[in-house]
């Protein structure tokens, strides 16, 4: 819940002075109190937010040139690809392009270094202690299919931004593959894409 609230731009409150100054900008007598204007503004903003969250679809914000790996791709290649493209997660596809799962950094962490390591820092610590050799040893010979999260959560191109945001927060994930009707990979939407979507075309702030 807290996560969602931080997203909500309605909470960036407009001040009483903003309203008062705006009312002064409109010459002539306005038959309404500043408090009512503020309430109206808040409600209108909420409606606009709802409308945008529901009218912008996955296809509008997704990255279409999506990098993916095969189920049979060795993990060392998966790691290399993720490093090379600077991505923290990658979809895993079958031979025919159907999405079979998703691999994120977290999936690597949770299989590495023995005792329930879950983060980069814990791995680094294990590595520096050097007692157990390379923490990646246990998965050196494995392939993408062995560690991917599966079945994958995927959305279709017409899924609204609102639903995608909910998938992220409910499942504590950061990206979701976009598939066509047959389940084939056509794109990916990350948390950043969702946030950036409606704001992408905004003018920069004046200094």
């Amino acid at each position, binding site marked *: 819940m807290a996560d969602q609230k931080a997203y909500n731009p309605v909470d960036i409150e407009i001040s*009483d002075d903003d309203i*008062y100054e705006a*009312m*002064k900008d409109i*010459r*002539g*007598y*306005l*038959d*309404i*109190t*500043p*408090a*009512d204007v503020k309430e109206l503004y808040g409600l209108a903003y909420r409606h606009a937010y709802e409308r945008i969250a529901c009218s912008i679809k996955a296809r509008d914000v997704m990255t279409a040139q999506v990098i993916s790996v095969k189920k049979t791709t060795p993990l060392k290649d998966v790691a290399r690809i993720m490093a090379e493209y600077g991505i923290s997660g990658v979809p895993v596809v079958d031979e025919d392009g159907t999405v079979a799962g998703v691999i994120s950094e977290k999936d690597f962490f949770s299989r590495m270094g023995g005792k329930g390591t879950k983060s980069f820092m814990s791995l680094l610590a294990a590595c520096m202690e050097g007692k157990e050799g390379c923490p990646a040893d246990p998965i050196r010979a494995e392939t993408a299919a062995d560690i991917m999260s599966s079945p994958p959560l995927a959305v279709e191109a017409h899924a609204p931004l609102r639903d995608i945001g909910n998938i992220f927060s409910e499942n504590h994930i950061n990206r979701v593959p976009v598939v066509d009707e047959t389940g084939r990979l056509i794109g990916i939407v990350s948390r950043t894409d969702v946030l950036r979507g409606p704001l992408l075309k905004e003018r920069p702030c004046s200094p």
Partner: protein
Amino acid sequence: MIRNYFTKMKGASKSPPPVGISEILWSWIGAFLGISTVALISYRVLEGKGLTMIIGSFGASAVLIYGAVKSPLAQPRNLLGGHVLSALIGVTSYQILHSHIWLAAAVAVATSIACMHGTKTLHPPGGATALIAVIGGKSVHSLGYLYAIIPTAVGASIMLAIALLVNNIPKTRRYPEFWL
């Protein structure tokens, strides 16, 4: 709960900003022209014919249609609808309840507010128009339902015409916001 009830009496907002000098001037000009037109017709043309073109509630309408031109309450639908509807209700109340004049007055005003609300024609001076139909004395009572036409409908229409002509002269004003 009780505490909340009394807290609400403290008020929750501040007074809207003041208007500029040109706004004040245009309000004066509009009101002067509007009222002088209906008053002239009333006292120079209709005097002695048992008719009138001006009623007290027009003073209140002038505040709205020349002084608060953006207000939903000041729009043509409200001005004409509110006055005519209230006049009909006022005359009816008097004719049915004239033996209990206090009751006729209360029913006239309360019912006209309800009907104006229900028809989206709320216009505060309408309440006065309904009340005048009851407490306005012989000269008003003798008009019967004609009261709804002269002075009410015709007088309000003249005031509306003046509002259209005057309120659209200054760059900073426009009237109406809507017709229906």
